[in-house]
Protein backbone atom coordinates (compact mmCIF):
# COMPACT_ATOMS: atom_id res chain seq x y z
CA UNK A 1 0.00 0.00 0.00
CA UNK A 2 1.06 3.55 -0.72
CA UNK A 3 2.75 5.34 2.17
CA UNK A 4 3.54 8.99 2.62
CA UNK A 5 6.73 9.18 4.63
CA UNK A 6 8.11 12.15 6.51
CA UNK A 7 11.83 11.75 5.94
CA UNK A 8 14.10 10.32 3.29
CA UNK A 9 15.79 8.30 6.04
CA UNK A 10 12.61 6.45 6.89
CA UNK A 11 11.83 6.06 3.19
CA UNK A 12 15.01 4.08 2.46
CA UNK A 13 15.24 2.27 5.79
CA UNK A 14 13.98 -1.00 4.32
CA UNK A 15 16.66 -1.31 1.65
CA UNK A 16 18.67 -4.45 2.33
CA UNK A 17 22.26 -5.38 1.63
CA UNK A 18 22.58 -7.00 -1.78
CA UNK A 19 19.61 -5.20 -3.28
CA UNK A 20 19.35 -4.06 -6.86
CA UNK A 21 18.56 -0.36 -6.73
CA UNK A 22 17.50 1.70 -9.71
CA UNK A 23 18.27 5.39 -9.43
CA UNK A 24 16.50 7.83 -11.73
CA UNK A 25 18.05 10.83 -13.35
CA UNK A 26 20.14 11.72 -16.37
CA UNK A 27 22.96 13.99 -15.38
CA UNK A 28 21.61 15.95 -12.45
CA UNK A 29 18.13 16.28 -13.93
CA UNK A 30 15.79 13.95 -12.12
CA UNK A 31 18.45 12.62 -9.74
CA UNK A 32 16.88 11.96 -6.35
CA UNK A 33 19.88 13.37 -4.50
CA UNK A 34 18.30 13.41 -1.07
CA UNK A 35 17.19 9.78 -1.36
CA UNK A 36 20.69 8.80 -2.48
CA UNK A 37 22.18 10.66 0.48
CA UNK A 38 19.79 8.77 2.73
CA UNK A 39 20.84 5.49 1.13
CA UNK A 40 24.44 6.45 1.90
CA UNK A 41 23.49 7.12 5.52
CA UNK A 42 21.44 3.96 5.99
CA UNK A 43 24.43 1.72 5.43
CA UNK A 44 23.01 -0.77 2.93
CA UNK A 45 25.88 -2.30 1.00
CA UNK A 46 26.75 -4.86 -1.66
CA UNK A 47 24.32 -3.04 -3.96
CA UNK A 48 23.77 -3.40 -7.67
CA UNK A 49 22.90 0.05 -8.95
CA UNK A 50 21.13 0.82 -12.22
CA UNK A 51 21.59 4.38 -13.44
CA UNK A 52 22.53 5.94 -16.75
CA UNK A 53 25.88 7.06 -15.35
CA UNK A 54 28.18 5.96 -12.55
CA UNK A 55 28.27 9.05 -10.40
CA UNK A 56 29.66 12.50 -10.94
CA UNK A 57 31.77 14.71 -8.74
CA UNK A 58 31.66 14.22 -4.99
CA UNK A 59 27.97 13.77 -4.45
CA UNK A 60 25.16 11.25 -4.64
CA UNK A 61 25.92 8.01 -6.42
CA UNK A 62 29.60 8.95 -6.70
CA UNK A 63 29.91 8.91 -2.92
CA UNK A 64 28.04 5.61 -2.66
CA UNK A 65 30.63 4.18 -5.03
CA UNK A 66 33.51 5.84 -3.20
CA UNK A 67 32.38 4.25 0.06
CA UNK A 68 32.49 0.80 -1.54
CA UNK A 69 28.79 0.17 -1.21
CA UNK A 70 28.22 -0.64 -4.87
CA UNK A 71 29.41 -4.03 -6.04
CA UNK A 72 28.05 -3.62 -9.57
CA UNK A 73 26.97 -0.78 -11.84
CA UNK A 74 24.57 -1.33 -14.71
CA UNK A 75 24.81 1.81 -16.83
CA UNK A 76 25.43 3.22 -20.28
CA UNK A 77 27.92 5.99 -19.65
CA UNK A 78 30.21 5.58 -16.63
CA UNK A 79 33.15 7.58 -17.95
CA UNK A 80 32.76 11.31 -17.50
CA UNK A 81 35.06 14.19 -16.77
CA UNK A 82 34.14 14.01 -13.10
CA UNK A 83 33.52 10.28 -12.59
CA UNK A 84 36.74 9.93 -10.62
CA UNK A 85 35.31 7.75 -7.85
CA UNK A 86 33.95 5.20 -10.29
CA UNK A 87 37.13 5.38 -12.36
CA UNK A 88 39.29 4.61 -9.32
CA UNK A 89 37.16 1.68 -8.18
CA UNK A 90 36.96 0.29 -11.71
CA UNK A 91 40.70 0.48 -12.30
CA UNK A 92 41.28 -1.15 -8.92
CA UNK A 93 38.97 -3.98 -9.90
CA UNK A 94 36.68 -3.17 -6.99
CA UNK A 95 33.48 -2.64 -8.92
CA UNK A 96 31.79 -4.69 -11.58
CA UNK A 97 30.47 -2.94 -14.68
CA UNK A 98 27.68 -4.06 -16.99
CA UNK A 99 27.85 -1.60 -19.84
CA UNK A 100 24.54 -1.32 -21.71
CA UNK A 101 23.67 0.86 -24.69
CA UNK A 102 21.36 3.53 -23.36
CA UNK A 103 18.40 2.44 -25.46
CA UNK A 104 18.82 -1.16 -24.36
CA UNK A 105 19.03 0.06 -20.78
CA UNK A 106 15.75 1.94 -21.16
CA UNK A 107 14.03 -0.86 -23.07
CA UNK A 108 15.22 -3.56 -20.66
CA UNK A 109 13.91 -1.55 -17.72
CA UNK A 110 10.65 -1.00 -19.57
CA UNK A 111 10.47 -4.74 -20.35
CA UNK A 112 10.75 -5.58 -16.66
CA UNK A 113 7.84 -3.35 -15.81
CA UNK A 114 5.76 -4.63 -18.71
CA UNK A 115 6.26 -8.34 -18.02
CA UNK A 116 8.29 -9.01 -21.15
CA UNK A 117 10.63 -11.99 -20.82
CA UNK A 118 13.14 -10.68 -23.34
CA UNK A 119 13.30 -9.03 -26.74
CA UNK A 120 15.36 -8.78 -29.89
CA UNK A 121 16.86 -5.46 -30.91
CA UNK A 122 19.24 -4.39 -33.66
CA UNK A 123 21.12 -2.14 -31.23
CA UNK A 124 24.56 -3.51 -30.49
CA UNK A 125 24.45 -6.23 -33.14
CA UNK A 126 27.95 -6.95 -34.44
CA UNK A 127 29.60 -5.03 -31.58
CA UNK A 128 31.54 -6.19 -28.55
CA UNK A 129 28.53 -5.38 -26.35
CA UNK A 130 26.68 -8.25 -28.02
CA UNK A 131 29.47 -10.77 -27.45
CA UNK A 132 28.16 -13.93 -25.84
CA UNK A 133 24.55 -12.93 -26.42
CA UNK A 134 22.00 -14.79 -28.49
CA UNK A 135 21.48 -13.26 -31.92
CA UNK A 136 19.24 -13.91 -34.87
CA UNK A 137 18.45 -12.34 -38.20
CA UNK A 138 14.92 -10.94 -38.28
CA UNK A 139 13.61 -9.45 -41.52
CA UNK A 140 17.16 -9.24 -42.80
CA UNK A 141 18.56 -7.39 -39.81
CA UNK A 142 20.89 -8.81 -37.22
CA UNK A 143 19.37 -8.57 -33.76
CA UNK A 144 20.50 -9.25 -30.21
CA UNK A 145 18.45 -10.86 -27.45
CA UNK A 146 18.19 -8.64 -24.39
CA UNK A 147 16.61 -9.47 -21.05
CA UNK A 148 14.61 -7.37 -18.61
CA UNK A 149 16.30 -5.55 -15.75
CA UNK A 150 14.25 -5.91 -12.59
CA UNK A 151 15.02 -4.12 -9.34
CA UNK A 152 14.18 -4.48 -5.70
CA UNK A 153 13.94 -0.74 -5.22
CA UNK A 154 13.69 2.34 -7.40
CA UNK A 155 14.64 5.77 -6.12
CA UNK A 156 13.15 8.42 -8.34
CA UNK A 157 12.40 12.12 -8.34
CA UNK A 158 9.18 13.68 -9.59
CA UNK A 159 7.65 17.11 -9.50
CA UNK A 160 4.28 16.41 -7.89
CA UNK A 161 2.37 13.52 -6.37
CA UNK A 162 -1.29 13.34 -5.48
CA UNK A 163 -2.90 11.35 -2.69
CA UNK A 164 -3.10 8.26 -4.89
CA UNK A 165 0.61 8.34 -5.68
CA UNK A 166 0.14 9.54 -9.23
CA UNK A 167 3.22 11.42 -10.43
CA UNK A 168 4.07 14.15 -12.89
CA UNK A 169 7.60 15.23 -13.79
CA UNK A 170 9.28 18.35 -15.08
CA UNK A 171 10.92 18.71 -18.51
CA UNK A 172 13.90 16.41 -19.15
CA UNK A 173 13.97 15.44 -15.48
CA UNK A 174 11.34 12.86 -16.43
CA UNK A 175 13.90 10.58 -18.13
CA UNK A 176 14.18 7.18 -16.36
CA UNK A 177 11.66 7.83 -13.56
CA UNK A 178 8.52 6.37 -15.14
CA UNK A 179 10.12 3.15 -16.39
CA UNK A 180 12.10 2.54 -13.20
CA UNK A 181 8.96 3.02 -11.11
CA UNK A 182 7.36 0.19 -13.09
CA UNK A 183 10.39 -2.12 -12.98
CA UNK A 184 11.04 -2.14 -9.24
CA UNK A 185 9.24 -4.14 -6.57
CA UNK A 186 9.29 -1.07 -4.32
CA UNK A 187 9.36 2.45 -5.70
CA UNK A 188 10.28 5.41 -3.53
CA UNK A 189 9.61 8.82 -5.05
CA UNK A 190 10.84 12.13 -3.74
CA UNK A 191 8.61 14.92 -4.93
CA UNK A 192 8.71 18.67 -4.65
CA UNK A 193 5.03 18.93 -3.91
CA UNK A 194 2.14 16.78 -2.74
CA UNK A 195 -1.27 17.86 -3.99
CA UNK A 196 -4.69 16.57 -2.94
CA UNK A 197 -6.17 13.64 -4.82
CA UNK A 198 -7.94 15.12 -7.80
CA UNK A 199 -5.32 17.87 -8.05
CA UNK A 200 -3.65 16.31 -11.09
CA UNK A 201 -5.45 16.08 -14.41
CA UNK A 202 -6.06 12.36 -15.16
CA UNK A 203 -5.08 13.02 -18.80
CA UNK A 204 -1.62 14.24 -17.79
CA UNK A 205 -0.47 11.71 -15.23
CA UNK A 206 2.82 10.16 -16.30
CA UNK A 207 3.30 7.54 -13.59
CA UNK A 208 0.05 6.08 -12.24
CA UNK A 209 0.07 5.48 -8.49
CA UNK A 210 0.00 1.72 -8.97
CA UNK A 211 3.76 1.94 -9.56
CA UNK A 212 4.55 3.97 -6.45
CA UNK A 213 4.96 2.61 -2.93
CA UNK A 214 6.51 5.40 -0.86
CA UNK A 215 6.42 9.14 -1.30
CA UNK A 216 8.48 11.66 0.58
CA UNK A 217 8.34 15.39 0.04
CA UNK A 218 11.70 17.08 -0.39
CA UNK A 219 11.60 20.83 -0.79
CA UNK A 220 13.61 21.82 -3.85
CA UNK A 221 16.88 23.39 -2.73
CA UNK A 222 16.98 26.86 -4.21
CA UNK A 223 19.88 27.11 -6.62
CA UNK A 224 21.66 24.11 -5.16
CA UNK A 225 22.94 21.30 -7.31
CA UNK A 226 22.03 22.91 -10.57
CA UNK A 227 23.07 21.13 -13.68
CA UNK A 228 26.73 21.44 -14.46
CA UNK A 229 28.26 21.20 -17.86
CA UNK A 230 29.78 17.79 -17.76
CA UNK A 231 29.73 16.69 -21.38
Amino acid at each position, binding site marked *: MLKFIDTVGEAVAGIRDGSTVMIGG*FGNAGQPFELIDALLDCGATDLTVVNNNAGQGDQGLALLIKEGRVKKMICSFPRQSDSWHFDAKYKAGQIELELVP*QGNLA*ERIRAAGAGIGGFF*TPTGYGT*MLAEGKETRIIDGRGQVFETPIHADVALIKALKADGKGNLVYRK*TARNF*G*PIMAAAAKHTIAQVSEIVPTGGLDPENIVTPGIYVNSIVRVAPAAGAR*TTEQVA
Partner: protein
Amino acid sequence: MSLVKTTIQTSDKPLGRDDLARLVARDIKPGSFVNLGIGQPTLVSNYLQPEQDITLHTENGMLGMGPEATGEQIDGDLINAGKIPVTELPGASYFHHADSFAIMRGGHLDICVLGAFQVSATGDLANWHTGAPDAIPAVGGAMDLATGAKDVFVMMTLLTRDGASKLVDTCTYPLTGVGCVTRVYTDKAVFLTGPDGVQVRETFGCTLEELQAMVPVPLTAAPAVEP
Protein backbone atom coordinates in the same frame (compact mmCIF):
# COMPACT_ATOMS: atom_id res chain seq x y z
CA MET B 1 18.82 10.43 -65.62
CA SER B 2 22.35 10.42 -66.92
CA LEU B 3 24.92 10.20 -64.18
CA VAL B 4 27.70 12.70 -64.66
CA LYS B 5 30.52 11.04 -62.82
CA THR B 6 32.58 14.06 -61.89
CA THR B 7 33.58 14.97 -58.39
CA ILE B 8 33.27 18.68 -57.84
CA GLN B 9 35.93 20.44 -55.87
CA THR B 10 33.74 22.96 -54.05
CA SER B 11 36.42 24.64 -51.98
CA ASP B 12 40.03 25.39 -52.67
CA LYS B 13 41.01 24.49 -49.12
CA PRO B 14 39.91 22.00 -46.47
CA LEU B 15 36.76 22.98 -44.58
CA GLY B 16 36.88 24.15 -40.98
CA ARG B 17 34.52 22.70 -38.41
CA ASP B 18 32.03 25.52 -38.77
CA ASP B 19 32.01 25.41 -42.56
CA LEU B 20 31.44 21.68 -42.37
CA ALA B 21 28.60 22.17 -39.89
CA ARG B 22 27.07 24.75 -42.27
CA LEU B 23 27.27 22.23 -45.09
CA VAL B 24 25.60 19.47 -43.07
CA ALA B 25 22.88 21.88 -41.99
CA ARG B 26 22.23 22.85 -45.60
CA ASP B 27 21.90 19.18 -46.60
CA ILE B 28 19.14 18.40 -44.11
CA LYS B 29 15.78 18.25 -45.85
CA PRO B 30 13.07 20.62 -44.65
CA GLY B 31 10.76 19.16 -42.03
CA SER B 32 13.27 16.57 -40.86
CA PHE B 33 13.55 15.18 -37.35
CA VAL B 34 17.21 15.15 -36.40
CA ASN B 35 19.44 14.09 -33.51
CA LEU B 36 22.81 15.79 -33.27
CA GLY B 37 25.44 13.84 -31.36
CA ILE B 38 27.64 15.28 -28.65
CA GLY B 39 30.68 17.29 -29.79
CA GLN B 40 31.25 18.44 -33.36
CA PRO B 41 27.74 17.47 -34.59
CA THR B 42 26.23 19.91 -32.07
CA LEU B 43 27.68 22.74 -34.19
CA VAL B 44 25.17 21.90 -36.92
CA SER B 45 22.37 23.43 -34.88
CA ASN B 46 24.00 26.84 -35.27
CA TYR B 47 23.40 26.75 -39.01
CA LEU B 48 19.88 25.34 -39.30
CA GLN B 49 17.56 27.93 -40.82
CA PRO B 50 14.09 28.55 -39.39
CA GLU B 51 12.52 27.98 -42.81
CA GLN B 52 13.94 24.44 -42.80
CA ASP B 53 11.56 23.66 -39.91
CA ILE B 54 13.92 21.07 -38.45
CA THR B 55 12.87 19.43 -35.19
CA LEU B 56 15.74 18.43 -32.92
CA HIS B 57 15.50 15.36 -30.72
CA THR B 58 17.53 14.82 -27.60
CA GLU B 59 17.64 11.24 -26.34
CA ASN B 60 17.10 12.24 -22.71
CA GLY B 61 13.48 12.84 -23.55
CA MET B 62 12.55 15.77 -25.77
CA LEU B 63 11.55 16.79 -29.26
CA GLY B 64 11.66 20.45 -30.20
CA MET B 65 14.90 21.28 -28.43
CA GLY B 66 16.03 24.88 -28.86
CA PRO B 67 19.45 26.50 -28.66
CA GLU B 68 21.74 26.28 -25.66
CA ALA B 69 20.37 28.18 -22.67
CA THR B 70 22.15 31.26 -21.43
CA GLY B 71 21.81 33.42 -18.32
CA GLU B 72 18.32 33.39 -16.89
CA GLN B 73 17.21 30.66 -19.30
CA ILE B 74 19.35 28.05 -17.58
CA ASP B 75 17.16 25.39 -15.95
CA GLY B 76 18.68 22.29 -14.38
CA ASP B 77 15.66 20.24 -15.48
CA LEU B 78 16.12 21.12 -19.15
CA ILE B 79 19.34 19.67 -20.52
CA ASN B 80 20.46 17.87 -23.65
CA ALA B 81 22.19 14.51 -24.02
CA GLY B 82 25.52 16.24 -23.36
CA LYS B 83 24.03 17.52 -20.10
CA ILE B 84 24.23 21.11 -21.30
CA PRO B 85 21.29 23.38 -20.43
CA VAL B 86 19.13 24.00 -23.48
CA THR B 87 15.85 25.70 -24.32
CA GLU B 88 12.43 24.60 -25.44
CA LEU B 89 10.82 25.65 -28.73
CA PRO B 90 7.09 26.04 -29.33
CA GLY B 91 5.64 22.64 -30.18
CA ALA B 92 8.16 20.78 -28.04
CA SER B 93 7.24 17.59 -26.20
CA TYR B 94 8.72 15.62 -23.31
CA PHE B 95 8.68 11.86 -22.82
CA HIS B 96 10.43 9.23 -20.75
CA HIS B 97 13.58 7.41 -21.74
CA ALA B 98 11.95 4.31 -23.23
CA ASP B 99 9.64 6.43 -25.35
CA SER B 100 12.57 8.60 -26.38
CA PHE B 101 14.67 5.66 -27.48
CA ALA B 102 11.64 4.15 -29.22
CA ILE B 103 11.75 7.22 -31.44
CA MET B 104 15.39 6.48 -32.25
CA ARG B 105 15.22 2.71 -32.44
CA GLY B 106 11.92 2.58 -34.29
CA GLY B 107 13.41 4.35 -37.30
CA HIS B 108 11.54 7.60 -36.84
CA LEU B 109 14.48 10.01 -36.91
CA ASP B 110 15.32 11.13 -40.42
CA ILE B 111 18.94 11.86 -39.65
CA CYS B 112 21.39 11.56 -36.84
CA VAL B 113 24.77 13.23 -37.05
CA LEU B 114 27.59 11.58 -35.14
CA GLY B 115 31.31 11.95 -34.64
CA ALA B 116 33.57 8.98 -35.39
CA PHE B 117 36.96 7.42 -34.79
CA GLN B 118 36.60 5.39 -37.97
CA VAL B 119 34.10 4.62 -40.71
CA SER B 120 34.53 1.61 -42.97
CA ALA B 121 33.93 1.41 -46.69
CA THR B 122 30.70 -0.47 -46.01
CA GLY B 123 29.43 2.07 -43.51
CA ASP B 124 30.51 0.40 -40.27
CA LEU B 125 30.90 2.98 -37.55
CA ALA B 126 33.41 3.06 -34.67
CA ASN B 127 32.89 6.00 -32.36
CA TRP B 128 32.51 4.86 -28.77
CA HIS B 129 35.62 3.08 -27.57
CA THR B 130 39.28 3.24 -28.38
CA GLY B 131 39.67 -0.38 -27.43
CA ALA B 132 42.63 0.50 -25.22
CA PRO B 133 42.85 -2.15 -22.49
CA ASP B 134 42.84 0.37 -19.65
CA ALA B 135 40.11 2.60 -21.08
CA ILE B 136 36.83 2.80 -19.22
CA PRO B 137 34.18 2.15 -21.84
CA ALA B 138 31.09 4.35 -22.14
CA VAL B 139 28.56 3.95 -24.92
CA GLY B 140 25.56 6.13 -24.10
CA GLY B 141 23.05 6.30 -26.94
CA ALA B 142 25.57 5.97 -29.77
CA MET B 143 24.61 2.42 -30.76
CA ASP B 144 20.90 3.23 -30.72
CA LEU B 145 21.39 6.28 -32.89
CA ALA B 146 23.70 4.47 -35.29
CA THR B 147 21.28 1.59 -35.68
CA GLY B 148 17.98 3.41 -35.54
CA ALA B 149 18.09 6.58 -37.63
CA LYS B 150 17.05 6.44 -41.28
CA ASP B 151 20.27 8.19 -42.26
CA VAL B 152 23.47 8.34 -40.24
CA PHE B 153 25.77 11.21 -41.12
CA VAL B 154 29.27 11.22 -39.69
CA MET B 155 31.31 14.39 -39.15
CA MET B 156 35.04 13.98 -38.60
CA THR B 157 38.41 15.05 -39.83
CA LEU B 158 39.49 12.69 -42.57
CA LEU B 159 42.91 12.05 -41.06
CA THR B 160 44.15 11.40 -37.55
CA ARG B 161 46.86 13.62 -36.12
CA ASP B 162 49.29 10.99 -37.35
CA GLY B 163 47.96 11.29 -40.89
CA ALA B 164 46.11 7.97 -40.95
CA SER B 165 42.77 7.83 -42.75
CA LYS B 166 39.72 7.45 -40.54
CA LEU B 167 37.86 6.15 -43.58
CA VAL B 168 39.10 2.58 -43.61
CA ASP B 169 38.59 -0.75 -45.25
CA THR B 170 37.74 -2.39 -41.94
CA CYS B 171 37.46 -0.64 -38.61
CA THR B 172 40.16 -1.52 -36.11
CA TYR B 173 38.36 0.22 -33.26
CA PRO B 174 35.40 -1.55 -31.63
CA LEU B 175 32.24 -1.08 -33.68
CA THR B 176 29.25 1.06 -32.78
CA GLY B 177 27.10 -0.24 -35.61
CA VAL B 178 27.38 -2.34 -38.73
CA GLY B 179 26.75 -0.84 -42.17
CA CYS B 180 24.84 2.08 -40.71
CA VAL B 181 26.65 5.18 -41.99
CA THR B 182 25.23 6.72 -45.16
CA ARG B 183 27.37 9.86 -45.46
CA VAL B 184 30.70 11.02 -44.11
CA TYR B 185 31.39 14.73 -43.89
CA THR B 186 35.09 15.48 -43.49
CA ASP B 187 37.33 18.51 -43.84
CA LYS B 188 38.60 17.16 -47.17
CA ALA B 189 35.54 15.60 -48.80
CA VAL B 190 31.98 14.36 -48.48
CA PHE B 191 31.69 10.60 -48.95
CA LEU B 192 28.56 8.56 -49.60
CA THR B 193 28.78 5.03 -48.21
CA GLY B 194 26.51 2.24 -49.25
CA PRO B 195 26.15 -0.89 -51.32
CA ASP B 196 27.86 0.79 -54.31
CA GLY B 197 31.04 1.33 -52.33
CA VAL B 198 32.39 4.73 -51.36
CA GLN B 199 31.43 7.59 -53.62
CA VAL B 200 32.85 11.08 -53.34
CA ARG B 201 30.29 13.85 -53.64
CA GLU B 202 32.65 16.80 -53.38
CA THR B 203 36.17 17.59 -52.30
CA PHE B 204 37.65 20.52 -50.44
CA GLY B 205 41.15 21.63 -51.29
CA CYS B 206 42.09 18.48 -53.15
CA THR B 207 41.26 16.55 -56.28
CA LEU B 208 39.70 13.11 -56.28
CA GLU B 209 43.10 11.69 -57.18
CA GLU B 210 44.80 13.46 -54.28
CA LEU B 211 42.01 12.28 -51.99
CA GLN B 212 42.41 8.70 -53.19
CA ALA B 213 46.05 8.87 -52.22
CA MET B 214 45.06 9.61 -48.61
CA VAL B 215 42.36 6.96 -48.31
CA PRO B 216 42.89 3.18 -48.40
CA VAL B 217 39.52 2.34 -49.94
CA PRO B 218 38.55 2.62 -53.60
CA LEU B 219 36.76 5.88 -54.32
CA THR B 220 34.50 6.75 -57.20
CA ALA B 221 32.88 10.01 -58.10
CA ALA B 222 29.27 10.30 -57.04
CA PRO B 223 26.60 11.24 -59.54
CA ALA B 224 26.65 15.01 -59.79
CA VAL B 225 22.92 15.10 -59.23
CA GLU B 226 22.06 14.10 -55.71
CA PRO B 227 19.87 11.05 -55.69
